[in-house]
């Protein structure tokens, strides 16, 4: 007698068939129930007497369905391979409690399986099957809806987002005492497009101003997008690849629209994995730009000397917690340690660490599923013991989810530790380039004010005396060192500096900024100096711009002088010393 199956159960079985690929089937058939995964799972370690938490047991809930409907062994010897179907919605609800409530998809069992069974991958797939028939925790449903409809997981409206960024820009200006410190929005052709987790903008934007300060002091050409700024992705948690693709595409599309060069992802484990590792597949897009974690960006700033840090500002003992998505799924575990050691004085490793570290308990979207909080906190004993053993006072992590997961564990087990992220520590250690400070002694307020006013007038006068004050100069050279050198010399003399590293960029900036002078290199990859010169001189908009050729290859002179165009205003051979540069620039600006 055949049992009646619910419509949802029918759909789940049917859709399972469409999800089966080599990786999934390999994982479903390879398990030998050896028990290695059991010791790897923090849920099992916290619940040694409850076999329902064992990864192999959780896996069997889906495996029996696969065997029954899609594997020949289930048709021939169903009793031997445990093949069994699903009939009711209650069974699906039970499956939901397993795949969402008893696993955070942290993949620790996956990397510890001698047979290569990637349980977390098909746990996620099972979540996706359930979501496709509307069975999921309420928190997952609410957030997914916001990501589908409003475009970010916390339903933040664009005007609120922009208002908050402006506010953080003001904070940056105040802290750096520099009114040019702003957060550029939708700036085209930026080297860095910075994307964040909505919780940063909604509840704790200190990470935004901290990152902004670092980018600004590093002199980075950066921007934040007005749309597609949410790099988190509930598609990873819910198993809904369509949502995953839609969210990721929104980020990629915006970057391409503003012609960003590199997507930098703030410290968020699942966002990093979704956007950098999984997103292109979900979205079905070929990505022609770089993507990196802000951890790597900050580390490179220090290595390249773009920012200086003083680690003695962070002396409290710290330890580092690896986010599962960063460490196990994306291999990001050495860089955060390297960076951390540069900005703190007292670092202690926790054990196990790197790819073997335990979950914060908040992975896989668990923070948004209150119904499972008690069992999540119980599983936190594993993390709590790890943390306690370090003796550290601060846990550092590169993941927003982990921040909350760890905070919950710390509160529940009364560990009295703080949680912070690398961006906060780097910002705290950041050496702000010195500015002229007015010495304030114990004087009456009016006198101080007067002194400040006088000082300001003096500063203004000094500025006016500089020979190139207010002159806008575009430096075109493919050598960053040359641009930096010319820029520093001219800026010291009061000029406002624009830079272009290639011909196209040069033409564009010349058109939009109409600089008072352009210094033009001849030998550049892509459009060479000759082509740039031709383009500028043949466009009525730019034909009158003053140009000084500066080249290390005089033989290329013909690129310019063979053209039937009005000659450049100046010509210099490299190497150029400081005085020659300033003298010639002045000559052109003042005499020609």
């Amino acid at each position, binding site marked *: 007698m055949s049992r009646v199956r619910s419509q949802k159960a029918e759909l789940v079985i049917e859709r399972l068939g469409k999800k089966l690929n080599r990786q999934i089937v390999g994982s479903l058939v390879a398990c030998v129930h050896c028990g290695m995964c059991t010791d790897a799972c923090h849920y099992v370690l916290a619940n040694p007497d409850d076999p329902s938490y064992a990864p192999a047991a959780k896996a069997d809930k889906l495996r029996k369905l696969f065997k029954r409907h899609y594997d020949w062994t289930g048709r021939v010897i169903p009793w031997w391979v445990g093949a069994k179907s699903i009939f009711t919605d209650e069974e699906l609800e039970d499956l939901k409690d397993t795949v969402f409530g008893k696993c955070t998809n942290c993949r620790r069992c996956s990397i510890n399986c001698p047979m290569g069974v990637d349980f977390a991958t098909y746990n996620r797939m099972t979540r996706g099957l359930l979501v496709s028939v509307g069975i999921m925790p309420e*928190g997952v449903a*609410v*957030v997914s809806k*916001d990501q589908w409809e409003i475009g970010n*997981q*916390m*339903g*933040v409206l664009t005007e*609120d987002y922009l*208002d*908050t960024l402006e*506010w953080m820009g003001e*904070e940056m200006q105040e802290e750096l005492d520099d009114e040019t410190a702003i957060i550029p929005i939708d700036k085209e052709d930026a080297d860095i497009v910075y994307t964040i*987790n*909505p*919780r940063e*903008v*909604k*509840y*704790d*934007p*200190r990470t935004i101003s901290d990152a902004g300060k670092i980018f600004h002091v590093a002199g980075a050409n950066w921007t934040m997008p007005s749309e597609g700024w949410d790099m*988190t992705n509930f598609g990873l948690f819910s198993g809904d690849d369509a949502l995953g693709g839609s969210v990721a595409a929104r980020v990629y599309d915006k970057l391409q629209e503003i012609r960003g060069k590199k997507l930098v992802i703030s410290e*968020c484990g*699942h966002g990093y994995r979704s956007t950098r590792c999984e997103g292109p597949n979900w979205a079905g897009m070929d990505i022609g730009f770089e993507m990196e974690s802000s951890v790597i960006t900050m580390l490179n700033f220090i290595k390249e000397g773009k920012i200086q840090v003083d680690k003695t500002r962070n002396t409290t003992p710290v330890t580092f917690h690896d986010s599962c998505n960063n460490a196990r799924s994306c291999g990001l575990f050495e860089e955060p340690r390297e960076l951390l050691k540069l900005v703190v004085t007292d670092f202690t490793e926790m054990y196990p660490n790197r790819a073997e570290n335990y979950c914060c308990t908040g992975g896989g979207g668990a*923070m*948004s599923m*209150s*119904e*499972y*909080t*008690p069992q999540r906190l119980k599983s936190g004993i594993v993390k709590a013991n790890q943390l306690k053993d370090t003796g550290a006072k601060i846990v550092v992590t590169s993941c*927003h*989810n982990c921040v*909350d997961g760890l*905070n919950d564990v710390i*509160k529940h087990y009364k560990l009295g530790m703080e949680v912070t992220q690398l961006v906060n520590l780097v910002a705290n250690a950041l050496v702000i380039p010195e500015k002229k400070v007015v010495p304030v002694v114990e004087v009456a307020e009016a006198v101080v004010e007067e002194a400040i006013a006088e000082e300001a007038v003096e500063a203004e006068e000094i500025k006016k005396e500089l020979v190139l004050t207010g002159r806008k100069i575009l430096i075109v050279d493919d050598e960053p060192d040359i641009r930096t050198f010319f820029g520093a010399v001219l800026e010291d003399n009061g000029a406002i500096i624009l830079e272009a590293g290639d011909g196209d960029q040069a033409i564009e900036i010349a058109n939009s900024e109409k600089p008072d002078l352009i210094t033009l290199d001849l030998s550049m990859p892509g459009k060479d100096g000759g082509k740039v010169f031709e383009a500028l001189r043949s466009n009525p908009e730019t034909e009158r711009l003053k140009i000084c050729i500066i080249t290390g290859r005089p033989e290329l002179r013909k690129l310019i002088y063979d053209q039937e165009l009005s000659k450049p205003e100046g010509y210099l051979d490299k190497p150029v010393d400081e005085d020659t540069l300033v003298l010639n620039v002045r000559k052109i600006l003042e005499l020609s």
Partner: protein
Amino acid sequence: MPMFEAGDISVEVDEDGFIQDPDLWNEQLANALALTEGVETMGDEHWKLVKYLRDYYLQFGIAPMVRKLCKETGLPLKRVYELFPSGPAKGACKVAGLPKPTGCV
């Protein structure tokens, strides 16, 4: 559903300790919830924040952006974190009787 109990207070909360029915909120309950979020005594600034959060929630059905919270109460962001060490999302919202914020928090 679990219950939050303190003295003669007994209110239904979710598994993360957020009250379920905003109508049951009162100052006595707020004081008791504050203790669970590391706030020993609710001062004037605490009340200012909590009342703003609650009014905003009753009007719009969601928690405000922290930007709005700071702008309308005049409290700097740093101060908000001093007042509620567990932050505006988990600490202040819980004391103000809002449901748990959705998403990665």
